[in-house]
């Protein structure tokens, strides 16, 4: 076995040094009926590197990649270009094969990148502080809801009709397990401001999203004001981090907590994971936050260094009183995010956002020109919803047959909203070419004619 350095001779020497006859001696505490006589039945034996590579490559080749086709799928994950240097950085063994930085004297590499990550996330969301990452956007959103309940000592949260249904479901799950009431506003393409009317004296927080799942962007300042008037918190969600380069960020709308998905910056699509949840808040709420926080300090000689801090919030210290049960987060994805942000800078993020927006405007123009297509999203960044005069699933299959992966049928996200069954959400990014857009428009024209 190529990954096991011990030889038979080593094993024999070691057993005799230990004073054991065989490894079976170590397993005598296992109930006899549970000791397998040989290997686990029903599984093949070991294989060489080449055989494994051949098998997995064959599986991979059965999938249509986002680069193989004209590709317009969004709804929470986005096809962006990842610079080659990012993968080099995250493949450095010292980052890839290390643990959570519990021993700061020999983990300053990871810690400094986390401190830079937190600074970048705080700046692009326009919030005071950010943590060192969560699993993904949906889990960040769920944690924000329970954090708001902790901070306000209230037990009710209100979700907008444009919050990504997967985020809403994850939030509902965690809240209900803790006896928190969840109010879900009806699905609405342009309804984020409805939250302002849904907040009452029992509400811990209202959760709105911009750009929302239909791509609609909204200045949610009135929602924040309404929430604050009732001493509730406003949680601002985003699934497309690149939008923060151009669109009003949570901190400019009065958000108390900002959560979202960071995949768009530095991370591949990976069929849904691993991704990186972003989590930021106001300074006032810092001690209520879940997850790791990296802070500045000095060493015994007075030199600046970084450590994990405020760990009395966390499970390994506080156990059942912790702010969250999270332990491992998304360290390496956060590294990819921060390395890409380091290349981009504020200017690059803005320029990238502009390209995304223009590609989406071009796409909207082209689709709008197709007979029967109706664009439904009134204001958008790089993603919008449109109606076709036929079942959306059939339209998307027709597009796929013509090498266009056209987006997400809304019925996949909202199986019970019949009036949305012919609506498609599509996204464009800097990777979208004029040829892709032309291919989309002409394929759709063919299908609808």
């Amino acid at each position: 076995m190529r990954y096991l350095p011990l030889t038979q001779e080593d094993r024999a020497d070691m057993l005799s040094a230990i004073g054991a006859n065989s490894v079976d001696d170590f397993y005598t505490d296992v109930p006899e009926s549970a000791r397998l006589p040989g290997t686990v039945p029903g599984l093949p034996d070991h294989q060489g590197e080449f055989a494994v590579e051949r098998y997995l490559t064959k599986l991979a080749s059965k999938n249509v990649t986002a680069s193989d086709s004209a590709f317009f799928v969004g709804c929470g994950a986005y096809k962006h270009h990842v610079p080659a240097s990012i993968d080099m950085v995250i493949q450095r063994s010292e980052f890839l094969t290390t643990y959570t930085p519990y021993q700061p004297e020999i983990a300053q590499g990871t810690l400094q990148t986390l401190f830079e990550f937190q600074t970048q996330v705080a700046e692009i969301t326009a919030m005071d502080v950010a943590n060192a990452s969560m699993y993904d956007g949906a889990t960040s959103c769920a944690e924000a809801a329970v954090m708001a309940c902790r901070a306000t000592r209230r037990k009710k949260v209100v979700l907008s009709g444009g919050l990504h249904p997967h985020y809403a479901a994850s939030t509902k799950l965690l809240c209900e397990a803790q006896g928190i009431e969840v109010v879900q506003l009806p699905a609405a393409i342009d309804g984020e401001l409805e939250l302002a009317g849904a907040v009452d004296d029992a509400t811990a927080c209202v959760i709105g999203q911009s750009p929302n799942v239909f791509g609609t962007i909204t200045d949610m300042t009135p929602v924040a004001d309404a929430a604050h008037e009732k001493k509730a918190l406003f949680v601002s969600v985003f699934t497309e981090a690149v939008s923060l380069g151009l669109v009003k960020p949570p901190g400019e709308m009065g958000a108390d907590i900002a959560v979202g998905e960071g995949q768009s910056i530095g991370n591949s699509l990976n069929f849904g994971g691993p991704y990186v949840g972003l989590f930021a808040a106001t300074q006032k709420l810092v001690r209520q936050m879940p997850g790791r926080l990296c802070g500045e300090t000095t060493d015994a000689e007075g030199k600046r260094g970084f450590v994990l801090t405020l760990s009395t919030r966390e499970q390994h210290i506080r156990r059942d009183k912790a702010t969250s049960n999270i332990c491992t987060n998304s360290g390496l994805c956060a590294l990819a995010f921060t390395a890409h942000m380091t290349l981009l800078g504020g200017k690059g993020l803005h320029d990238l956002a502009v390209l995304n927006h223009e590609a989406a405007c071009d796409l909207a123009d082209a689709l709008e020109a197709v007979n029967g297509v109706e664009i439904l999203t009134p204001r958008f960044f790089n993603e919008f919803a449109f109606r076709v005069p036929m079942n959306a699933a059939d339209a998307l299959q027709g597009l796929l047959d013509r090498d266009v992966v056209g987006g997400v049928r809304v019925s996949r996200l909202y199986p019970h909203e019949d009036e949305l069954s012919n609506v498609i959400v599509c996204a464009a990014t800097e990777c979208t070419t004029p040829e892709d857009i032309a291919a989309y428009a002409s394929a759709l024209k063919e299908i609808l004619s």
Partner: protein
Amino acid sequence: MSMNSQGRPSTPVATGSQHDTETVSGSKGLYQFEPLIFETDRWGKTGVDLPKAKGTKSRLGGVERTGKAELPGLSEPETVRHYMRLSQRNYAIDLGLFPLGSCTMKHNPRLNEKMARLPGFADIHPMQPQASVQGALELIDELATWLKTLTGMPAVAMSPKAGAHGELCGMLAIRQALISRGEADTRKRVLVPASAHGTNPATAAQCGFIVDEIGADKRGRVDMDDLRAKLEKTDDVAGIMLTNPNTCGLFETDIKEIADLIHEAGGYFYCDGANFNAIVGRVRPGDLGIDAMHINLHKTFSTPHGGGGPGSGPTVLSEALAPFAPVPFILKDEDGFRLVEEAEEEAKESFGRMASFHGQMGMFVRALSYMLSHGADGLKQVAEDAVLNANYIQAKLKTVMTPAFDGFCMHEALFSDKFTAEGIETIDIAKALIDEGYHPMTMYFPLVVHGAMLIEPTETESKAELDRFCGALESVARRAAQDDDTLKGAPYLAPMKRLDETHAARKPVLKWAPPAPEQLAAE
């Protein structure tokens, strides 16, 4: 004589005095000083080349950002150098033995990295039509089959994103099962041993359960008398969360009786699978009577820890809990593989959705690559070598350090601080180990052992490496026993001296801020 005929061979020259070890640049030989990215002159610049925007169109409807995000953008050479230099301040498995107990820091095969980067896995979208991702769904299904077979369990939930998220999955399944029995409001008590990982009580609390701690006996196992006493009242018991092998590195000898007792009480058995590496391929947890167990793919199945994730925590479930598994999951029918994404119809008893999408695909590819490489025979060998290595360390150090318990251990060796002189603590030994070139062991955990030192070498260390490590730790342990107070200042040879964590927590500085004007004037 021409200049180069002899070259300029260097020869050590004796000098009278020691050279000052401080330098003007802050760098020291190969060790390069590296400031924060914010301490550069790259503000307002960018390190990417993007095509020019046309600047003609907008459908933003006035919802623009007003203040620009102010962040420096470094060029590619500066960026690469920044991270290269920072990387050299990190310890890593690829540098040396990483004996963190309960963390299973084993070698991360490079084939796995290569496979996860195949565009057919890395460049596919979770919401693209399912007909276009049949290979990805097949891979998840194949990995699920391996996990079910290795654990002897009938079902597995693939979406949990890490170990603690897997715990959440298992406990939510238990909660849902209690709801279906109409007992969710009465059965609130979850038994958790004092030795448990902090995530166990935290998870139970997150699911609305009340934690009831059970003690350990003198052998480091669950105190059965305490357990029986806590189960005298049964109608409020939801279940037990137990790590096996436990956090003392020992197999719970009474595990089947524990399973029977909890089931008789009407509760469920959650097993924390963090230590599965000790028994993988040799023992199936399903044969022990458990109802749920998460599997840390980033421990037992070698996906890299990445400095704190991403992990992956698929959770196997018994027949009793399987109907309540989260969505999405994969079904196979005549048309191929498909995802069930809503908690209705085929998943009408499901407790719901835990995450944005289908799970940690990137980790799934790596884990399956690892499993296929090892096979059933190799995985058995993994467990045996991991346990052999830990027992070898325990045997070599038991005369200089104090083993916490008698007898053989499983995959990790646990020592208490009894052997140290007064005033020398576990942390001093840990920091001195850094000077010897090793990452410290897990310290002060589990909580049931005073000054605990938990050492898990894993199976991917050679005998020669174990011997070197034991030699280093033995010498540190002897110094600790002899009250060598220079240990209190360790580490001396790391990039940083001991860091002040108390100061960091008192007035937290969690992001970079521009220096105040008066400070700038002083410079």
